[in-house]
Structures are given as C-alpha cells and as structure tokens.
C-alpha cells in the first residue's frame, strides 16, 4: 500500500513530463517526415484507445472498429466535399453519424456473446467496406475521395485566427484530440461506470444478478468507443486529404487489434505503446520488403504465447518480481 502511495505522484509526474515533451516536439523537430509519423501515431493511438474501452475493459471483441473509423472519415469527407460544410460542424456531424450507425449495429450485435459478437461485427465491417466501394454515386468508389481540405481556421477575437495549414498546427490539433480521448476514457474507466463495464467483462450473469443491465452497459461502452473511432477517422480524413475504401477495411480493425494486444489489452497505456511502436517501426521500415501483416502475425503469435498481457503486462510482471513485496 505504501509503495503504491509513493508511486502515484511519480507516475503523475512522468505523465506530465511526457505531455510537456509532446507539446515541445514541433519546436526542435523540423523534419516534416518525423512529424508526419508522429501524427499518424496519434491518430492510430486514438482509435486503439477507443477500441480498448469496448474490448479491453468491457470484454466485447468488437471487430468492426475499422469500419467505424472509416465511417467517421467518409462522413466528414462527404459532408465537407459534397455539402460544403465547414470542418468543425462536419466533425460533430460525422461523429454523430458514426454513433448513430453504431447504435443500429450495436443493438442487434450486442445481443450475441463471445465469438458470435466478434464474427457478427466483423461481417458488418466487411459490409461497410463493400458499400463504400460500390456506392460510386456517393463515395466515388475505388477512385476514392480526393482533395478533402485541412481543418478550417478557428477565428479568435481581434481578427486573429488559428490556421491549420502548417503540419505543426495539425500535429497540435491531433495531439490535443488524443489527449482528450485518453482523459475521457481514463475518467470513465476509473469511475463507477468503468467498474460496471469491468463487471460485465468479469461475469455478465453475476452483473445482471447484482442489478446491472448488461445490454445498457455494453451498448454505452460500444457507442463511446465508436464515437472516438469516428473522431479519429475525421482527423485522418482532414489530415491526409484522400480517402479510399481500404480505410474502413477489416485490415484496419486487425491492425488496431494488434496495437491493443501487443501493448496490453485492458490497460490505459497498452494501446498507446502498441500504436506508437508499431506505427513507428512500420513507417521507418517502409523500404524493407517484409509484408507488414505477415510480420504482425509472427509478433502476435509470440506475444500470445510468451507475453499474454502484452508489453504492459510484461513490464508489470517484471516490476513486481523486482520490487520484493511489490505494490499494485
């Protein structure tokens, strides 16, 4: 107990230092390439963190997360390009559309359990990609959506404004979004609501006998996670400026799943570590001709056999065995 009490302030300090470090990066990193990679890390970390809420904390293996990322991205792209809506209202609308579709899918899908839920959501993911690919009148199909503009400037008093033309400004926008996602999901996980989700993960029947509606809790967790997936998708659309149906593909889902599993499912930092490490390595190893998904496969097998808790779980075990009695 005492070690845990002592540990806590240091942990807070580390988090604070990391945030400050993240904010100062654009001041000394001038390489557009490195900033680009960091932005991609943040976007994937956001999507993986939100997937972690439904999968890691609520125990429902949602294999449609890539679809919701794609739905968010396409909704924003279409709203901006076809209807000429400003980026900021489009962001809100796109998240609302994603959550609405999440609701329509969650209601029937969450009635199933375990692997049935996983298969059901994965089918939905495939359907979404097929629809985006074939509804050419709306989505331009395989040609993709071209020329989505960067986020619109935010007007400030006294005639100034925040613009998002530079890569640095985009970095800040996406970093702040990531931090907000982490903050909100942290708050949820460390509240009675989070306890409810984890009770469902632990034993659904027992949770129901203690007066918790499993359906309500699962649906809520599912919708929150789709909301952030959609948000991450919108940021991706506006940053990259080009969308093709592959962005909603189940490969994206499995990539997010890999981030969570390698980093450590059901922990706050796990998906972040997974997303950063894997995005960095895959971007830096672009020249080397190892098919990425094959490499992921091998890493996953190794993690599943030797390191069930992912990197976070491994570090925790190491930490506990080092610190004789060990706090929590």
């Amino acid at each position, binding site marked *: 107990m005492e070690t845990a009490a002592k540990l806590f302030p240091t942990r807070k300090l580390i988090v604070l230092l990391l945030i400050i470090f993240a904010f100062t990066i654009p001041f000394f990193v001038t390489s557009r390439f490195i900033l680009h990679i960091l932005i991609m890390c943040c976007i994937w970390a956001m999507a993986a963190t939100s997937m972690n809420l439904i999968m890691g904390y609520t125990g429902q293996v949602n294999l449609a997360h890539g679809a919701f990322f794609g739905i968010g991205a396409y909704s924003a792209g279409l709203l901006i390009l076809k209807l000429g809506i400003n980026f900021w209202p489009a962001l809100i609308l796109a998240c609302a559309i994603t959550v609405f579709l999440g609701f329509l899918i969650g209601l029937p899908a969450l009635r199933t359990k375990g692997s049935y839920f996983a298969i059901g959501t994965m089918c939905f993911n495939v359907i979404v990609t097929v629809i985006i690919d074939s509804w050419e009148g709306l989505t331009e199909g395989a040609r993709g959506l071209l020329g989505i503009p960067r986020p619109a400037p935010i007007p400030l008093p006294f005639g100034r404004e925040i613009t998002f033309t530079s890569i640095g400004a985009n970095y800040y926008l996406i970093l702040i979004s990531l931090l907000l996602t982490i903050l909100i999901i942290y708050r949820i996980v460390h*509240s009675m609501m989070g306890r409810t989700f984890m009770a469902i993960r632990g034993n659904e029947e*027992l949770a129901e006998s203690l007066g918790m509606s499993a359906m309500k809790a699962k649906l809520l967790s599912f919708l929150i996670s789709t909301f952030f997936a959609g948000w991450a998708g919108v940021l991706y659309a506006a940053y990259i400026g080009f969308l093709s149906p592959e962005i909603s593909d189940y490969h994206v889902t499995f990539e997010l799943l890999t981030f969570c599993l390698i980093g450590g499912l059901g922990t706050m930092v796990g998906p972040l570590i997974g997303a950063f490490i894997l995005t960095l390595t895959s971007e830096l190893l672009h020249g080397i001709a190892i098919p990425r998904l094959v490499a992921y496969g091998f890493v996953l097998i190794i993690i599943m056999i030797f390191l069930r808790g992912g990197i976070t779980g491994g570090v925790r075990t190491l930490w506990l065995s080092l610190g004789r009695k060990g706090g929590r």
Partner: protein
Amino acid sequence: MNEKLLEVKGVCKDFGGLRAIDNLEFHIREGEIFSIIGPNGSGKTTLFNVITGFYPATGGKVIFKGEDITNLKPFTIAQKGIARTFQLTTVFTRDTVLDNLIIGHRLRIKAGLVGTILGSHSNQEEERRCREKAEEILEFIELTRQKNMIAGNLTQEAQKRLSIGMALATDPQLLLLDEPTGGVNFKEISSLVSLIEKIKEKKVTICLIEHKMKVAMDIPDRTMVLSYGRKITEGSPRQVSQDRRVIEAYLGKSYAA
C-alpha cells in the same frame, strides 16, 4: 411480521417436454428464514432462476410486495430488492474483495455519462457511498483482513461469504441463497450459519436451498419440500422431517413405513 413478502402462484416451468416446476404455490413471510429442500433435480435452482428472472416462467405468477414481477429482467428484479447467490460460487475472480463489494452497490446509484466525464461532485459522492457500503459489508461478513486480496485466491468458504456480501450490498429485502454451504468443509459450516443468522437480525428475509441436514434443520423457520417440481409438503423443519412423503421422496418407498 406475517405479511407475505413473496408469493408464488401456480408457477410452471417447462424445458421442452420436461416439466421442471409444476403448478407451484407458496409464499415467503417477511422476516423469516424459508428453506427449500428436495432431492437432486427436483427443481429448486430452477425455481430460483424463475423468481429472479433468469428463466422465463411457462405459467403462473411471481408477486413481490404485491407487485407482479413475473418474467421481468434479472437486473430489474435485483433493483426491486431481490438478491441472490449462485450454486457454483460466483464472484469477480480477478478483482479484489473490496472491488467486488463496491460494484455490489452499483444498482443504487446513477453514474451518468456526463457526470462521469466531467468528474462531477455528485458522481464522486455516489462512488463514496458505494465505498462506504462496501466497508460496512466487509465488516459484516468478517473479511476486513482480506480486503485487498484477489477474490479468486480466497478459500471456498471466504468466497461464499463474499458472494453473500455482494448480494447484501444491493440492499435487498429478500435474499435467495442457493446452497450457501455447498462445497464447504464441515468445520466452516458453522461460521456460515452464524452469518445467515446475523443477516436475519438485520431484518432481511432469507430463502435458502440446502442439502446439509445440520443447516436445513437448525436455521429455517419454515421448510418446503420439492420433488419432481411439485410441492410435497410445507411446515416447520421437524414436522417436515417426520413426513412420510418426504422420506419416500428421499429414500424410496420401503423406508417410508
């Protein structure tokens, strides 16, 4: 004291062609300990599952405090004040004892989304109430020393206590215990028995399924005997144990003379 807390009126439960509960009629009075006994497969656990909404009833009515609760969802029934434990001891094995009890009081608070995200004062207040409840129950079930242990590492007897504690944390008026001493060794039974008696003093009505004679004879005020889903008899434990039909159901016709 004599008011009917729970009334079961002509409840039937079929599994395909098998009638597990057949036109069952009984009631539980407020403040008593009511026990259900019967040979294996006589429908005791099925009855619990019907009362608590885990199985839909094929026919009949379950009335709690004058309100029809037949076929409501399990969580609604728990919210109305009926708590239960399971035959195979069920706790959240990966969480600590304290966490298990905190979540037990979850149904009495709101924990709304906006308040959670903003970390509002009322939400913190709610969490504090759950913690207080958990501490109170912890003392009641005498697990204070094991507070921070992982529930899955507790002894079978302590897990039984914890599961009863979780049910109590929901602030029930009626507590259904499915074999509270099942799988526990002989020495430890008496501590569970005294826990059950302590619960009775708290004015919680108890209905229990029990096999062990020591428990089934000593604690209940009234006992009902089931066989093949039918009620054979009902009365004080002494009366019931002398009943010819009960002996017949348990031991066969030749012993019943």
